[in-house]
């Protein structure tokens, strides 16, 4: 259940953005990635999730333990909240969606089409998907975008419960979740030396 990343170098659009990233994530731990925009946090998370191959180094995790949540929630606007969750639960071979609905306070919205939800409600539904996957290692990219303070608190509580059950979480976020037990990894020192980009270029990446 341990996620171990060794000497990882990653590229975005053919340009090396981070190199030599190494860390370990044991069960019950949370790791928050920090760094300025464009440093490669999203690319790092996508590489760890297996969506793109690393340039060097390796990502070691037991098969079928990771679940990834990106900027987009992967919701179908014509399906209801319940149908959306049910679909992902079935894809991951689970069938309990009630606890996920409960944890993110979506009970009142169960039968509403996802297209009619507000941005924050959509995000809550997207995060509820993590609970129905039954996977222990969560890889989350900016999970708190468009959440209000109450929902952020709700999310922090879900993370805490998940860690308590032996799960782990890797998050890229800019806000303080109030998770005292979470470790922080600033990826700025790992910026690739070969590709020194000025601020002008960053706007296009």
């Amino acid at each position, binding site marked *: 259940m341990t996620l171990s990343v060794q000497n990882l170098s990653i590229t975005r659009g053919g340009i090396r953005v981070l190199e030599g990233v190494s860390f370990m994530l044991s069960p019950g731990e949370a790791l928050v990635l920090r760094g300025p925009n464009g440093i490669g946090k999203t690319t790092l998370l*996508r590489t760890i*999730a*297996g*969506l*793109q*191959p690393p340039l060097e180094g390796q990502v070691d995790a037991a098969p*079928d333990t*990771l*679940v*990834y*949540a*990106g*900027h*987009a*929630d*992967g*919701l*179908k*606007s*014509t*399906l209801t909240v319940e*149908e959306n969750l049910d*679909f*992902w639960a*079935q*894809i*991951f*071979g689970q069938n309990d969606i009630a606890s996920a609905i409960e944890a993110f306070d979506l009970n009142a919205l169960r039968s509403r089409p996802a297209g009619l939800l507000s941005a924050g409600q959509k995000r809550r539904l997207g995060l509820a*998907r993590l609970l129905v996957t039954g996977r222990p290692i969560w890889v989350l990219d900016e999970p708190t975008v468009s959440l209000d303070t109450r929902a952020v608190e709700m999310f922090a509580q879900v993370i805490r419960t998940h860690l308590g059950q032996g799960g782990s979480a890797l998050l890229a976020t800019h806000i303080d979740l109030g998770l005292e037990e979470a470790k922080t990894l600033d990826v700025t020192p790992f910026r690739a030396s070969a590709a020194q980009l000025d601020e002008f270029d960053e706007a296009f990446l």
Partner: protein
Amino acid sequence: MKALLLRDIRLAIRAGGGFGLGLAFFLIVVVLVPFGVGPQSELLSRIAAGTLWIGALLACLLSLDRIFALDWEDGSLDLLATAPLPMEAIAAIKALAHWLTTGLPLVLAAPILAVLLNLPAAGYGPLILSLLLGTPALSMIGTFGAALTVGLKRGGLLLSLLVLPLYVPTLIFGAEAARRGVDGFDTTTPMLMLAGITCGTIALLPFAAAAVLRVNLR
């Protein structure tokens, strides 16, 4: 896998899913041809089989870009790629869902529309059989094309250009089988060729589609 198939079918049938798109286009083409060609029933019955096949092919083409584009836009494709389903299965299921929501309705509508084109009675059986054998290949090739162009803005044009040449063998043998049926000849050879093309695409293209999807998701 069943969940993905059911979801795709459900999405297609719900509002804005584009279920009727191909069917409506097929209807329009077939209804307009007699107006364009003129009311010569003999000429119409000679071109009926070919017209129906071209109409079905173009109707199929119309909905191809939706196969992966919608899932890519809302991020579900990324999430599906990290789900326990293998990418090959995703491509195959997507093609099956496309066939069930586009190809199969076309096959079922063809005999009704064939009346408008004055298709001779002997041609109905071979026409339906050839469409039934050929349209799965259209969906599968189209899924491969959609996988190639996923993530491209306005990829529809490129998709059509890539897919149309690959559709030509299916069209040739499909229309040939239907035409031979109309003329009362033996249709075995073109039917077998058509079945061969379909089996070949179903066997090979899920792997090709999965490979290009992985590249496109990077």
